[in-house]
């Protein structure tokens, strides 16, 4: 069954056919040539290693949230590379440990948002008519409200918790995926291989999942990479406003929110967590742009 799909794709991309590489291999080959994307990828791999390792290197109770008033507000030194905060906690340890929150929240809410968004978008694009109208009008409404506001409303109404934070962030993500999935499905629905799949007697859900969706993967993958970056910024913004991850946890935005009160004399407290957010998001954006160019070379001229 899937051979029908694949052959259509390969004929659409003559380059891939000529060198008899799969579409994925071909994209990877192009991606490897993109220095920015590789730099981003390397940084992200490093970050994932750091996030995993920090759980073993640092003891959460003592190194990360343990209060040590004797060493408070120390400037960066050999002992405390990034200095210490107002409660004497080592900022280096906290920033490294904080990568866990950003990565989990970023990937988590994008994943949930992707599943919801792609489902809604695929249904809207496939069935059209009433379903399309209802899904898209709700989508328009959510799209019109600035995404921080949606998150603020959800989190303040349902209370601050990591789950509610995930939920509030994935709403924004889902709207983007709905739009993309709908547009791709609408263009693909008309093609012959979909008709062929039908003619072979497949049920609708199977046609959507096995034949239509695999063919709109590229824009979805690109959007996913870029969304993780935006979501990490949004998550840290909410923590900065005091309604994201609750206090002692070393989430980067929360660290900035606390550090802000000491910016007058200890400005360094506010520098590092922000740099951490920026480089993470930068890496994701570099990778996302690279993946887009690799998956759709026509776009890059």
């Amino acid at each position, binding site marked *: 069954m899937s051979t029908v799909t694949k052959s259509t794709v390969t004929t659409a991309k003559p380059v891939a056919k000529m060198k008899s590489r799969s579409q994925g291999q071909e994209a990877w080959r192009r991606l490897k040539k993109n220095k920015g994307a590789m730099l981003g990828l390397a940084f992200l791999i490093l970050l994932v290693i750091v996030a995993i390792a920090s759980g073993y290197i640092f003891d959460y109770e003592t190194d990360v949230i343990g209060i040590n008033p004797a060493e408070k507000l120390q400037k960066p030194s050999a002992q405390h590379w990034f200095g210490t905060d107002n409660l004497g906690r080592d900022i280096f340890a906290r920033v490294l440990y904080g990568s866990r929150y950003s990565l989990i929240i970023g990937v988590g809410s994008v994943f949930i948002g992707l599943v919801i968004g792609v489902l809604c978008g695929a249904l809207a694009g496939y069935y059209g008519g009433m379903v399309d109208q209802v899904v898209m009008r709700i989508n328009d*409404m959510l799209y019109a409200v600035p995404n*921080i506001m949606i998150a603020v409303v959800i989190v303040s109404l*349902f209370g601050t918790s990591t789950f509610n934070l995930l939920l509030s962030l994935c709403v924004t993500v889902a709207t983007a995926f709905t739009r993309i999935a709908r547009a791709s499905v609408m263009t693909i629905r008309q093609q012959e291989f979909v008709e062929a799949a039908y003619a072979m007697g497949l049920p609708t859900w199977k046609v959507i999942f096995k034949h239509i969706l695999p063919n709109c993967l590229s824009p979805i993958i690109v959007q996913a990479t870029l969304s993780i970056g935006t979501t990490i910024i949004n998550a840290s913004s909410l923590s900065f*406003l005091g309604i994201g991850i609750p206090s002692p946890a070393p989430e980067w935005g929360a660290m900035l929110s606390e550090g802000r009160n000491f910016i007058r004399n200890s400005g360094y407290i506010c520098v590092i967590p*922000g740099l951490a957010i*920026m480089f993470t998001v930068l890496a994701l954006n570099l990778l996302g742009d690279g993946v887009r160019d690799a998956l759709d070379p026509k776009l890059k001229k």
Partner: protein
Amino acid sequence: MGRYLLKRLLLMIPVVLITSLVIFGAMNLTGGDPALALAPDNATEAQVEMIREELGLNDPFIVRYLKYMGGMLKGDLGTSYVTNKDVFKTYMQRLPNTLELGCASVFVAVLIAIPLGIYTAINQNTWKDNVGMVFALFGVSMPNFWLGLMLVLLFSLKLHWLPSSGRNGLASLILPALTVGMGLAALITRTTRSSMLDVLRQDYMRTARAKGADERRVIFRHGLKNALIPIITVIGMQLSNVLTGSVLAETVFAWPGVGRLIFDSISKRDTPMVTGCIILSCVLMSLVNVLVDVLYAFFDPRIKAQYVRRER
């Protein structure tokens, strides 16, 4: 054009109805009792009950909603549970601050982004282009509130050039406007560049050059003018976002804007204030969107022609 505008303005009515229902419903149906929050700590149950009665919280939801909407038709958006002040007046007190910051940041953004976008597009794939694009990339990757903190650190605390917070004259506007504006600039730069790149490839650009128009004229009159529509779209989107208040920048700079007002009211469960402010923000955003549509027609005769045809 006139009929189209009227239609757009009438379309705002269902938007207001739906938004008010959603916000009012969400604020009412999810836990939290404003009466409890308002009552002094040592209040008896009877006193709390009295406050509840006074605020009309004992009525069923639908009655409260209808009462609220009835008031709105008369131009009364209710009074705040917390401060007991008129919602409309409170919003209007904050609005000029938000408009000031919003317009200033969009101005900063346009001032940076459009020249940069054109410049990078003309120098596509050279090091100049790369530098510009890296700038834009950093711009979208930076959390806005952090940029604000860094600007405060540099310009207020190290150099002592500008005030770090509050709203007091032009000097206090610079840092907040830069903070919000830089974030917007990144996106507008990218849009300007890609839109210009599309236009630069067109045949009429070659024709203009062949006719001997000088390069500046070619770029601005023939190029930019045709590239403007997507740019206006992005600017309009940003503007309507900024008008609901940039709650982050307002937090960093203690700027008394609408964003902070809404944020604080949500955390205090001040239902009339939240509902009123969001409805007013929606109306404002719709107005901006209509304005953007009018601008389309102004810059693109093809779009103008459509309106004219439709009216015939």
